[in-house]
Structure formats: structure tokens, C-alpha cells
């Protein structure tokens, strides 16, 4: 890759680049993106709640739209949805704004020029979308992980949670316990990797398209990225919601739900045979 001729046009780095040192910490460009995200969300929340009315105006309804969409979905997930609807909504809005910040003009292009180690002149973008940094997505996934373990323990007690990890027939526990443990942790990895991979791949796609055909064609992909940014935010929030809702369900209710789902499967499975 570094030796290819398109390299001067396509600039993508897999890790966030350092802007300046802040004591022992290095302040990276994805931190600027994250700060911008929270600033934007905070400002929007402050502005909307300051002059909110019972009968919403045009702007207020626009801001209430995502809230209503998510709370509608979350409220169908479990009877105790009020406990975690705020968290899920927070996930959704944060990721949505973080993804869309990457699509603003100038975000990947305005930067500081410097001479890198190999002697080439390189540009470090000042702002990088926060969700194109694995640290950010891993942080979000960690929050989700802690929350669904917390809800699992809260719903079934520490013993009940451990019993769920051990599996159903107790003599199978030596086999099932490691598998269940791995599946819990793989959620953490898959949540963070999915978001990072999608957003970063979007950045690479856009950079490649701009290098290949600078006029008009990238606009199509920008539109596609707007859609992807929304879908990925929704997917992260929905997966976190499902994990929490399944952890939240008490043991006998999950059994009931599975029996229902199996019963509902039969007609649909039989239908194509008739058709």
C-alpha cells in the first residue's frame, strides 16, 4: 500500500493521529471529533429544553422524532424498559452524531502539514469522526457490556446470573461455562469492531472515490454514508438493547419466550411448502 502511486491522494490512517501532547496524554484528532459530538448534543439538548412547549413547534418535533422512534422500539423489548431507555437513546444519538460529523466538508481534509518519519509531507486532519477510532467504539461497547452484566445480576441475583452462565443441565457446566463466558466477551468485541469497521471502511471508501473520480461520483457515496451512519447507530443501540433485555428477563420468562418463538416458527416454515 505505501508504495502505490495513489498514495499521495488517498490519506487514511487506521489509528487516530496525535495533534499535540497534553502532559503524558497525547491529544488525538478523534478526541476533537468526540468533543465536537458531545458539544453538539449538549447544545442541542440545552437549546431544545430551554424553550420546549407541550405543543411542539417545527424544530422541537424534529428533535423529538429520534427520541420517539427509539423509545417506541425500546418499550417493546421488555417490561422494565424504563430503566435503560435513556442509555439506549444516548448510544443512538451519540453514534449518530459522531458518524455524521465525519461527512461534514473539511473534516478529513483541513489539517496541519508536517514532515513524517519517511520524509514525505503529510497532513494530519484536525477533526476525525470519533467512531472511526477503535478506542471510542470500544469505550461505548464497554459501557454496554457493564450495563448488560449489571442488569443480568440485578434481575436474577448474582447466583442466578452465575447459574445462567453455567448452562441448563448442571453436569454440562464444564463445557458450557467457557462457551458462555466467551460468548459474553465476544459481544464486546463484535459490538466495537462492527461500528469501527463500518465507519472506518466508509472513510476509506470516500477517500478512494474522491481520489478516483473527484467530481459528482463521491456525492452518491456520501449519500450512502449518511444512510450507513444512521443504520450503524441504530444497530449498535438495538444490539445493546437486546443484550440488556435478554439479560433482564427472568429465567422462566425467557423459557416461555423461546417456546413462543418456536411455536410461531412452525406456520412460517410450513407455508413455503404449501405455496
Amino acid at each position, binding site marked *: *500500500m505505501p508504495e502505490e502511486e495513489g498514495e499521495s491522494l488517498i490519506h487514511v490512517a487506521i489509528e487516530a493521529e496525535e495533534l499535540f501532547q497534553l502532559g503524558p496524554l497525547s491529544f488525538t484528532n478523534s478526541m476533537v471529533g468526540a468533543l465536537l459530538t458531545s458539544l453538539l448534543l449538549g447544545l442541542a439538548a440545552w437549546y431544545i429544553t430551554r424553550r420546549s412547549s407541550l405543543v411542539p413547534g417545527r424544530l422541537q418535533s424534529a428533535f423529538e422524532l429520534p427520541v420517539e422512534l427509539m423509545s417506541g422500539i425500546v418499550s417493546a423489548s421488555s417490561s422494565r424498559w424504563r430503566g435503560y431507555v435513556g442509555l439506549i437513546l444516548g448510544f443512538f444519538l451519540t453514534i449518530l452524531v459522531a458518524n455524521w460529523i465525519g461527512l461534514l466538508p473539511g473534516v478529513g481534509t483541513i489539517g496541519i502539514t508536517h514532515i513524517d518519519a519517511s520524509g514525505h509531507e503529510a497532513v494530519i486532519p484536525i477533526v476525525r469522526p470519533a467512531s472511526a477510532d477503535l478506542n471510542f467504539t470500544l469505550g461505548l461497547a464497554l459501557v454496554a457490556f457493564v450495563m448488560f452484566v449489571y442488569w443480568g445480576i440485578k434481575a436474577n441475583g448474582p447466583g442466578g446470573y452465575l447459574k445462567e452462565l453455567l448452562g441448563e443441565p448442571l453436569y454440562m457446566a464444564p463445557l458450557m461455562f467457557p462457551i458462555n463466558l466467551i460468548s459474553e466477551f465476544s459481544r464486546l468485541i*463484535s459490538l466495537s*469492531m*462492527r461500528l469501527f469497521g*463500518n465507519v472506518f471502511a466508509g472513510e476509506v471508501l470516500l477517500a478512494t472515490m474522491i481520489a478516483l473520480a473527484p467530481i459528482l461520483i463521491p456525492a452518491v457515496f456520501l449519500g450512502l454514508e449518511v444512510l450507513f451512519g444512521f443504520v450503524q447507530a441504530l*444497530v449498535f443501540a*438495538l*444490539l445493546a438493547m*437486546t443484550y440488556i433485555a435478554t439479560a433482564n428477563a427472568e429465567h422462566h420468562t425467557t423459557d416461555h419466550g423461546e417456546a413462543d418463538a418456536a411455536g410461531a416458527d412452525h406456520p412460517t416454515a410450513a407455508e413455503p411448502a404449501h405455496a
Partner: protein
Amino acid sequence: MGLGAIGPGIGLGIAVSKAMEALGRNPEAAGAIFVPYILGIALAEAIGIYALVVSLLLIFVA
């Protein structure tokens, strides 16, 4: 990456075709289908993303 995209590609195709089929049979169920549909899509797509992440790591890090 190319090989890794085959599996999710097939899986996504099946998932979407079944969802559309279900939607055609019962348009009122759109709301009920939507959430499981998105989740299934996301899980199938995750495999492709793994391939992508591994290939990106090979390009940039190794």
C-alpha cells in the same frame, strides 16, 4: 477480504429476501419485522466486518 465477503453476502441475501417475502405476505407486520430484521442483518454483516478489519490490519499494521 474477498473470501470473507462471500459468506455474509449469501447470508444477507437470504435474510433480506425472506424479510421482503414476509412483508409481501403481511404488510401490517412491518413494525414487528423491522427490529429482528435489523439485528439479523447486523449479525450477518459482522462477519464481513471481521474480514475487513483483519485485512485492514494486514495492510496498515503488519
